[in-house]
């Protein structure tokens, strides 16, 4: 595989449409941006042109939401071809997707749905990750998702499932600390147990986001500041894995760019504390 420039081990921000004009015009001080791949599955137009302009000045990670790695349906060859075309155009520092499913019998639900944690699902996902990595000619980063239910048929702990995908396919992991916390609360486990099961060398990126606690369970809305217990878990994550590229994700009720920069600054401070400890 050809050498690919990696993401810097600093904090970045999710690029969202309402902020694009400002980013293009002002080139704000931000380590890197992550863009949702599917938003750029277009033939042309201003959005793609803006992403190319931003790419000229910042590292970009492409983050997929629709490839549906865990669907019993076959991998969507058209989707994969579009992703490949976008990767060639943007030359991103990372390409990621979710450990979930979204399509069945040809109907896509366009959401990140939970897999039964079974050997059948694990084998299928590994197969798909292999196929995607072969098609793209580069490692895929696979992200753990929030889940609001578990199946009685589950036979594997979530953290073992995630670790096995990395181990069997050689893929990298996008470790979403907020999703770990949300699942720990929703399903009653110790998030440090999860952390200890993850091979740190495989973790190539970290996600941080805010959840919604007003409903019957924690919901991963990406619509608030990172919660204090998630910052604590992030600190433990960085202590365990060392400094990693860390992204602030915000989708619902998107605030001004400055708020995202504030959040990124908190993550950056935690990364620096750890880097200082390593060099001291």
């Amino acid at each position, binding site marked *: 595989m050809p050498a690919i420039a990696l993401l810097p081990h600093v904090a970045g921000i999710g690029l969202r449409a309402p902020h694009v004009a400002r980013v293009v015009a002002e080139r704000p001080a931000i380590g890197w941006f992550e863009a949702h791949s599917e938003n750029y599955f277009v033939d042309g137009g201003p959005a793609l042109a803006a992403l190319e302009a931003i790419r000229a000045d910042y590292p970009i990670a492409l983050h997929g939401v629709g490839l549906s790695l865990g669907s019993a349906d076959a991998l969507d060859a058209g989707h994969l071809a579009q992703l490949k075309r976008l990767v060639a155009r943007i030359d991103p520092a990372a390409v990621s997707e979710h450990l979930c499913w979204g399509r069945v019998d*040809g109907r896509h639900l366009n959401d990140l*749905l939970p897999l039964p944690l079974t050997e059948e699902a694990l084998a299928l996902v590994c197969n798909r990750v292999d196929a995607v990595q072969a098609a793209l000619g580069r490692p895929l980063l696979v992200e753990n998702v929030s889940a609001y239910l578990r199946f009685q048929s589950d036979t594997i702990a979530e953290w073992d499932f995630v670790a096995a995908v990395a181990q069997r396919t050689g893929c990298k992991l996008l470790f979403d600390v907020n999703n770990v916390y949300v699942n720990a609360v929703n399903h009653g486990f110790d998030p440090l147990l999860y952390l200890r099961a993850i091979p740190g060398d495989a973790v190539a990126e970290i996600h941080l986001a805010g959840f919604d606690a007003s409903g019957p369970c924690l919901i991963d809305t990406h619509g608030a500041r990172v919660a204090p217990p998630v910052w604590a878990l992030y600190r433990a994550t960085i202590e365990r894995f060392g400094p990693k590229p860390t992204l602030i994700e915000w989708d619902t009720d998107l605030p001004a760019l400055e708020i995202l920069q504030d959040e990124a600054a908190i993550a950056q401070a935690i990364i620096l504390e750890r880097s200082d400890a390593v060099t001291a």
Partner: protein
Amino acid sequence: MPSLREVQRSFATAIVFGDNGAIASLGIVPGGLGADERIAVYRNNVLGNYRKALAATYPVLQRLVGGRLFNIAIDAFVRGYPSARGDMNRYGGELGRFLSFYPPARELPYLPDVARLEWAIDQANIAADAQALDLATLAAVPENMLGELRFQLHPSVQLIASPYPIFHIWQVNQTECAGDDRVDLGEGGDALLIARGTSGVTVERLTPGAYAFLVALARNLRLADAVERALAAEASFDLSATLKGHVAGQTIVALRAPPTSQPGISA
């Protein structure tokens, strides 16, 4: 133990159709929340995503029918027209068609055409880019060859005709519109050009002649045939001004090679 496909099939049925049998067959771990409440979280997320995405594509439709009815219509649309792809950019184009036979929309017969207009605007934003056609290229064509020319329109171009005044309806329902928002449905129909230019997507009213002309060019007819159709639609059609205007405005972006004749196949 159900197979992965069986689990996913039941999950989708439970989310989209709220099917209790499907929920029961999933074998969801109880504890704290019931299986139906857990599925409801996903149903709200999934339907909420579609409502939000389609409200962004169809802001005028949403204003015309109101947020509550819009959401009900979108939920019904999603059941009838599944998304086939993992990217949402191309989902929702059938909403106009759906509304044309959706019983609650029967009193608003112009809705489907307003939907077609909003979809055209949405898709024009993500269509391919194209270089402008140099007027000098056109001027260099010998006069006796002009009638044989065929033209390529900008990939973003869409042409929409409606018996309803959809442009006026669309205009008065823009958020920045502060004036009189009444529209007389009897004021006549519209023929519209939607295209992306250097300053973004624009909607332009066309004369009947210009509309017939551009539709003919989009169908790859010869210039001579396009002019004939334009004159049939509008006796005062001005070819020179229309052609120059739409080349300069980048509606027309290239000359097309004539279709190659295929011996043995009659048209």
